[in-house]
Each structure stands twice: as C-alpha cells, then as structure tokens.
C-alpha cells in the first residue's frame, strides 16, 4: 500500500469540558448498565439452567429435556456419526448412519439419539470421547457460574479499554478525520 503524498490537512479541535463530562457520564452509565445487565442475565440463566445439569449428574435422564441431555453427555454427533461411538456400543445409530447416507438418516438418527437418552451417563461420556476424536472435543457443559465470571470479565475488559481510550483521548486530543470534526456554523455540509 502506498499512502498518498498529501496527509490529512485537518486541525484538531479539543472537545469542550462540558461535552467531555457528558461523555464520561454517558460512558460510565452505559458501562455500569452493561455489567449489571450481563450479571443479572447470567444469574437468571443460572436459575433456569441448573436443573438439567443436576439431572444429568444423577444419570437420571428420563425427566430431562432430550437436547439438554445430549449436550451434557457429549455432542449427539458423537453418538450419531462417529465410528468411535460404535466401538463403545453407544452408537447403534452410528452404525446405521455409516452405512446409509448421513444426511438422509439425520432425522432418523436424531430420533434414535433421543431414544438413547435413557442410556446411562457412562454411555454418554463414551460418546463424548468419540466426538473428541472426531472433530474437536465437546467440552463439559459450562456452568452458569463460569459463564457469569467469564462474561463479566469480558465486559469488564472491554469497559476498561473504552474508558482508557476515553482518558487518553482527553489527555491528548487526536487529530480527527474531517467527517468527525464538528462542523463550523454556517458552513455547507
């Protein structure tokens, strides 16, 4: 890339103190709301999602939603499509899927997978092993607490970055591109 010889011939106009204060106030409010919102939402998820996980840990999948069980015992594809699961005896479904075309069998296999929900947690773990050898490992389900911590952390880091940038900008007002410069009164757009 070759930059043009003529640089931006714009002058920096430091923002007025009132605007800066408003900016800081706005940023702080938005940031606070964001963090509170994330924590609140994740906390709520904690209440609504902890039940299936507990069910899984007790290996009593009868009452749990089938998809949740699939998620907690390993990706269903492990049981459906990966040869490893056949070896572990969890995947009669896989045997069928391997012989027939995968896409056509997807629905049928899926139903079979639902039927297999009644199988033990041990079987599910083996299915997860099959997946881990297939296309990356399906990690253990992430607890709501972990989500809460990670999401709050990410929100916090982003917030810090934004606040740091605002602080640096206040200390050293940059040369703004023309389209971001305040228009002088009476000037044509």
């Amino acid at each position: 890339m070759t930059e043009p010889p003529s640089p931006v011939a714009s002058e920096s106009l430091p923002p007025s103190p009132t605007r800066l204060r408003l900016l800081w106030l706005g940023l702080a409010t938005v940031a606070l709301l964001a963090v509170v919102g994330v924590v609140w939402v994740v906390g709520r998820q904690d209440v609504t999602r902890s039940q299936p996980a507990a069910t899984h840990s007790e290996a009593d999948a009868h009452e749990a939603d089938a998809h949740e069980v699939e998620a907690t015992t390993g990706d269903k594809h492990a049981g459906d499509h990966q040869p490893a699961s056949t070896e572990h005896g969890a995947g009669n479904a896989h045997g069928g899927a391997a012989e027939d075309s995968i896409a056509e069998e997807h629905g049928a296999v899926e139903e079979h997978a639902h039927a297999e929900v009644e199988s033990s947690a041990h079987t599910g773990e083996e299915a997860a092993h099959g997946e881990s050898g297939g296309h990356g490992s399906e990690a253990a389900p992430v607890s709501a607490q972990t989500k809460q911590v990670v999401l709050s952390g990410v929100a916090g880091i982003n917030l810090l970055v934004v606040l740091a940038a605002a602080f640096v900008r206040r200390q050293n007002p940059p040369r703004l591109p023309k389209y971001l410069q305040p228009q002088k009164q009476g000037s044509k757009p």
Partner: protein
Amino acid sequence: MSVQYPQSPLDGPSGILSGNLLKQRWIAATLRSRLFPGVLQWATLLVFVIIIWQLVLGPSSAHANLGTALTWVLWWPLIPIIFLAMGRFWCAICPFATISDFVQQFVGNHRPVPEFLKKYGIWIIDAMFILITWSDHVFGIVESPWGSGMLLLLLTTGVIVSGAFFQRRMWCRYLCFLGGMAGNYARTGMLALRAVPEICKTCKSGAACFNGTATSAPCPLFEFPRQMDSNANCNLCANCIKSCPNGSITLTLRAPTQELWFVRVPKFSEAFLAVVIMGIVFVQNITMLEVWQGMLGQLETWVGTTNYAVTFTISFLVAMAIPVALLGGTAWFAGKFNGESLAKNFARFGYALIPLDVAGHVAHNLFHLFAEGKAVWYTFVAFLGFVQPEGSAALLSPQTIQVLQYGLIVLGTAGSIYAAYRIGRSTYGTQKLVHSLVPYALLLLLLGVANVGLFMLPMAHRV
C-alpha cells in the same frame, strides 16, 4: 441539499455487463446514498447480537442453538460465495467493523497504524488463521455454542481495542483472519472498484478518496483508489465514490479470477496464505471424514498417547505442511526451467491456488449448507418459543450435494490451472511458458483430485 456528482469523461458503454456500473442510475444512487452501507451494517449488527446472545446464553447443544446454525451452517458457507461475487463487500457490513467504527467515533484516539503491523500483519493473520483452526479442533469451538460465543467475544475485544486506539479499521486491514482470507478470495471477485488515473492526475481535492471529506469517511482500509490495482483491500463501502469530487471512481464487472492473472508485485506472504488455506480446507475435510477415526487410532499407536491435542496437532502440522511442501517442491522444479528462485516462483504461482481454495472452501461448506440447512429454520422456530421441528435437516440429497461439490472442484481446478497459465504467459511470454506451466498444472491437478477424493467419503455434520 443534494450533492452533484460529475460524470466521468471516460464514459464507456453503459450496459450492466460492460463498462462502468456507476452509469446505472440506481446503482450510483444506492452507493452514494447516506444510508449505504449503514442500513446493512446495523442490520448485520442486530443479527450478530442475537447470535452472540444465543451462543453464550442459549441452548448448550449446537443442535438446538440458533447462533450455531446461523454462524456455521448459514454464514460460513455463504461467505466465500459472497467474496467470489462481490469481493470484500462483507467487510463493509461486518458487525465487527461497525463496532470498531462506533467505538472510534466516541472514544477513538486515531493513532497511526504501527509499522510492524504494516510489515508483518499478513503473517499475524496467517498465524491467527492457523491458531483458530487448531483451537476449533482441540477445543471444539464449532460444535460448542459457548466456544463459538467466546471466539466471537474475543474477536470483539480485539476490535474494540483497535477501534479505540488506532485509525480507521486497522483490525480489518491488518489483523482480522477473515479479512486476510477475504483479501485473497476477493481477488477472484467479479466486481472491481478502480479510479481513472487520467482524472486523478488533475485532482485538487487533497486525496479526498483517501482522507475523506466533511461528509464522508476516509477509506476504512487505507487504500488510495488512484493506485489501487487489486480487490484485496477494497470492501466496496463506497466512501470514495461519495467523496471523489471528479467522478473518477468506476465500478466494473470482470471475469472471476481475472485479477490473479496480472499480480504486479507478488508477495510471498499472500501466496503462503493461499497455501495455508488449502491446508486448512484439507484439515477440515479430513477430520470430518469417518476414516479419520482410523487414522487417529493409528497415530495414537505410533506416538504412544491418546491425548487428542497431541495427535491432532501432529496431524494438523502434517496436513498444513503437505500443500506448502508440494508448492515449494514445484516452485523449485519450475525454477530449473524459468530461472527464477524458489521464493519468487512460490510467490508468483501461489496465487494460482486461490480459485481452488475458494472452490474447496465452498464445496466443503456446501455440505453443511445443504445437508443441514433446515437447522437454521428449526432453531429459529425454537428461538421464537415454538416447539423445535424434528426431522431431517437436509435441503438436498447427499448425491446431489456430491455432484455439486465435484462440479465446483472441477471449476476451481480449471480456474487455478488457467490462472497459472496466465501468470506464466504474462511473466515469461511464450518462451518459457510450457516448461513453467507444466509442473504447476500437474500440482493443481493433483490437489484437485485429492479434493474430489475427500468429497467422495461420507462427512459428519456440524449441528
């Protein structure tokens, strides 16, 4: 007050298929509208927010997650097709870019791009691409909604840092792994935005296209249309069309892959990225095949561990090294005939791999799009609160998908061989052409056959 845009004095034919597309009023009006591409940017940002929401807080099973379906079944397969049709246009409406612009507008420090990024950015992109693909397999990013969500949030943080401290869209130009791939794929794109040098010579606007004006932003990817001869870093955001006071910008249709025939200054790093992408497509294909389990078992026996991170890393390195070694060997061999060094040959003819890259990428993802496409609808229904429909997620039969995949690979191979031919012809004339071309044509044929072979085997699903 409406802005009057002058007509280019170099008016050619005004048909859609020939000449300057900006001669079409509706196209020019659309691109010059203040709403373009903002409306699309905000729309994609809205979808992005829904995706993130679903990935991190939605169902933990990829099968039931709308975010996973939208990202890996719909968007990822469509993205190379968009690059082929419209170059890097996706980058103009990418939610990451919108976030960067938004942050920049309010707290941006507009620092210049660090020199090392200008120099080594493409290598960082190469490394990021490899690292993300490796992480996907080892940590199961695609299969895990949470993992996918974390990847997107991690990238968002990078984008925010970039937008908060540096000029324009530094992230997109110098760091985004998708941007790197987009830059390569966009060279095959059928839309080309260029400036007319004769008009630019008389320009007195102080490079308004590069610097922007009071009403339009500068080129976000640091391109100077006057000197631009590649689509690699043009995202068709139309800022330059809006800011050019002389009507110098043209938008033309061209044959796919045409740009690859005349790369003036071939860069080793860009050629290397093309080969890396070939390796990544191989890895993606091989690990989704059912024979992969057998290969993995064999490898576990050899290395004496069942640790997947170890065995996959070895397989990954081998799969990545094969295309690099093949192109390196071919470049060395061709150098015997055309008298150029291995590095020069590698850089010059590495670009010829791009059509096959695109074809392989599209063909691989065609499977996910057509064999799992209904998952997007199923998960969307569930997202709205209804009972998720059950049944096959396939839109087409596996046989039909395979035929499409073979067709694409044949087209890609032909496109690559033709690109190698044109590169050879424009570089060496007719004298050394045959001797230079034959090794590369054989290599491309081999890679094409290998791709077809991979697509003949059954593949696993994503959702």
